[in-house]
Every structure is written in structure tokens, then in C-alpha cells.
């Protein structure tokens, strides 16, 4: 019997975003949440859990990672460090 795969995201503390912590198999969302609690927060590692069916995740392909992320490669002017400032200028 093939139970679907779920990806688990945990918010470690208030003020932090949910982070991917791992995955598990479960028949439905409610069971996935229960299993996620038992599997990934046995030591109070989280205050909130998301479970997402792995089949619902669309991912970029590692084969084309160069061409896919290339457009950002030559736009160093998007970083503040690109700009040289005149001596003495403050609060900028």
C-alpha cells in the first residue's frame, strides 16, 4: 500500500519562518500532521508545522540551474555595494 509522501516545514519559534525539516509518508493531511509532530518535534523543535504533498511541489531542475539563474548573474548593480559614495557622506 503506497502512502503519499509529504514534505514537512516547521516554524522553530515565533518570529522565524517555516523551514523544511524533512519528509514522511501518511495516508492523509491530518495523519501527516500527527506524524510530523511525533517525528520532527519530539524535543520542542517547533511551534507550528506545515505539511505539503510532495507531488504538489514544482521544482526547478538541477540540469538547467546555470541557464535558469543566469539572468541575475550580471546584475551586480542590484547590490548597494556596487555604488561608490563620495567621502564623508553619512546615513546612506
Amino acid at each position, binding site marked *: 500500500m503506497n*502512502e503519499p509522501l509529504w514534505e514537512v516545514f516547521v516554524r522553530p519559534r515565533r518570529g522565524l519562518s517555516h523551514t*523544511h525539516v*524533512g519528509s514522511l509518508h501518511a*495516508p492523509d493531511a491530518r495523519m501527516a500532521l500527527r506524524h510530523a509532530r511525533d517525528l520532527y518535534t*519530539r524535543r520542542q523543535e517547533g511551534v507550528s508545522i506545515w505539511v505539503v504533498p510532495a507531488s504538489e511541489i514544482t*521544482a526547478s531542475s*538541477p540540469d*538547467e540551474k546555470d541557464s535558469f539563474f543566469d539572468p541575475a548573474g550580471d546584475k551586480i548593480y542590484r547590490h548597494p555595494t556596487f555604488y561608490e559614495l563620495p567621502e564623508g557622506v553619512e546615513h546612506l
Partner: protein
Amino acid sequence: MHLTGKFCNTEGVDTPAVKGADGLLGEVERAEAALRAAADRAGAGSFEAVIEADQKIEPRDVMPEDYRKGLIRQIAQHAHSEIIGMQPEGNWITRAPSLRRKAILLAKVQDEAGHGLYLYAAAETLGVTREELTEALLSGRQKYSSIFNYPTLTWADMGAIGWLVDGAAIVNQVPLCRCSYGPYARAMIRICKEESFHQRQGYQSLYVLANGSPEQRRMAQDAVNRWWYPSLAMFGPPDSESTHSAQSMAWKIKRFSNDELRQRFVDMCVPQADILGLTLPDPDLKWNEQRGHYDFTPPDFDELMRVVKGDGPCNRQRMAHRRRAHDEGAWVREAAAAYAAKGKTA
């Protein structure tokens, strides 16, 4: 091009660090820092370049077929060991001497189930299914660590297992936190952090017995006598006979040889045994000034091979129990699947 895929991996990030971590736990922390540092270095490209630069291979990267297969074999064997490893200790949960010890033992066995599941998830990122892995264990096609084919005869065995068996497992596993395969390395970081509680509770439990009544002391010594050599055998055959080592080293799956890790374990245990006031059952155990290590009697590797091949004291019992538990749980899985299907149509 695969648009959807499996990413399952287990991160050690944000698990609480133990204060004053040093020794092996410090090594885990450093491996975790190295993992982050590797991620920060510029992308390397080919499989060989990534390995060379000490970066991590991730699930959908191109990798040699032997790397993939070897990792599946190793991670699966490790996962099966965690699952079967629940039995020797599960045996004592209902007979723990106090509620405190019972709660601790229960938490430890629950962790082992968790470790098995982290590892199965890591193996699945390499393209094997959970059903295939379960089948491989139940049919006996894949093995689990031979240590779990020894019986747990007295309560003191819970202490000796925590101290020696989990101790040997940690020595084996800490270097795996730096394994070149990302999901395995991340799972190992998390496992090692949790595992150090296992070892400490065992040592502490044994310490209490060793300082208790003469009967308790005898029981503690007897447990150490029985678990010492099987624990030494956990590091596998001697380097001269180890079959997978060289390639594993080149691919940075394995970082140290079986004999190196065994020696490290012995060197750690001798002073710990002194503090317990217990004797390690090896009359030839002695400090070698020249080598800077303890000399010791190696375990009986013929016995190890016999147990691996299925002829240990508990092999049949362990497998029969696992198959029975799997079969008896079938109705739960079926009911949960039926309920899930009902939810979809409603």
C-alpha cells in the same frame, strides 16, 4: 525534465544544541558548521568537482550509479538497524525498575523509530521506494546491524547497550555527519544529537547499578562482559578484509577505516569503565605508550560473520517479530487508507 520530485531530507538545523558540547558532540556541531560553509562556497559543477570541493551532492544531481546504489545499501542497512534495534530494548519497557527509567527507555525506543524514518526518507531521495525498502528488510535481502541479534538478559543490559552499543554507533556515525550526500549528512547530524542522550542515560544507569548492592554490581559487570566484544564487532571486519571501504573513502561517504574507528572507541571506553568501577573483559587491554593508544583483543570476526549470515542467538526471533508486527499492523494501514479515500470523494 522532472518538475515534481522528492526532496525528502532531514535537517539538523535548529535542534537545540547541548551546552558545553565537546568531544563527539562538538564534532557534530563542527560538521554542521562545515555543511553550512560548503553551501556558501561557489557552485562547483560536475560530480567529481563537488566531491573534490567537499560540497554536498543533492538528490537530483547527476551521480555515478555505483555511488547511488552504494548509498542506498548503506542508508537502508542503517535504517533497518534502527527499526530492528527497537526490539532488544522494547523487551524491557514493561519491566523497567521505576517510572522514571520506563519513561526514559520509552523515549529512547521512540527515537530509534524516528531515526529509522529519517534514514528511510534519505534513502528514498535516491530513487528507491519505501515499499521496496520494507520488503528488503522483511525478506532478509538487506541486513541490519548484527548487534541486535544478541539477547537482552537483564535490566543492566539497558545500561550496557546505551553506553557501549550506542557509544559505538555514535563513533561510527559522527564522521557520517560529513558524508558527501546531503540528505544523509543532515539526517546523521540530527540523529547524532539525539543519540548522545541514549549513550548518557545508559552510562548513568550503569553507574547507578555499579554503585548499588553487590547483586546490582554483579549484574552490571555481567552485562558489560557480554556486550563488550559484540560492540567492538559493530565496526565491521578488519581493514584488511573490508570490501567497500576504498571507494567509499574516495567518494567521501566514509571518512575513517573500520579499525581506526574501533581504536577510537576502545580509547574512549577504557577511562569511562574506570569511572564506572567496572572491568572490560580483556586481560590484554593495556596502554601502548609508543602508539599512543590502548592495545586490545579484537572481537571474534568469525562469530560476526556467522551472525551476519543469520546464525546469531536472536536472528530468527527478531525477523519473526518484525514480520508479525508488520502483518498485524496491516488493518491499521488499510483503515487509514480507506478513511483518506473517503475524505477525497466527500
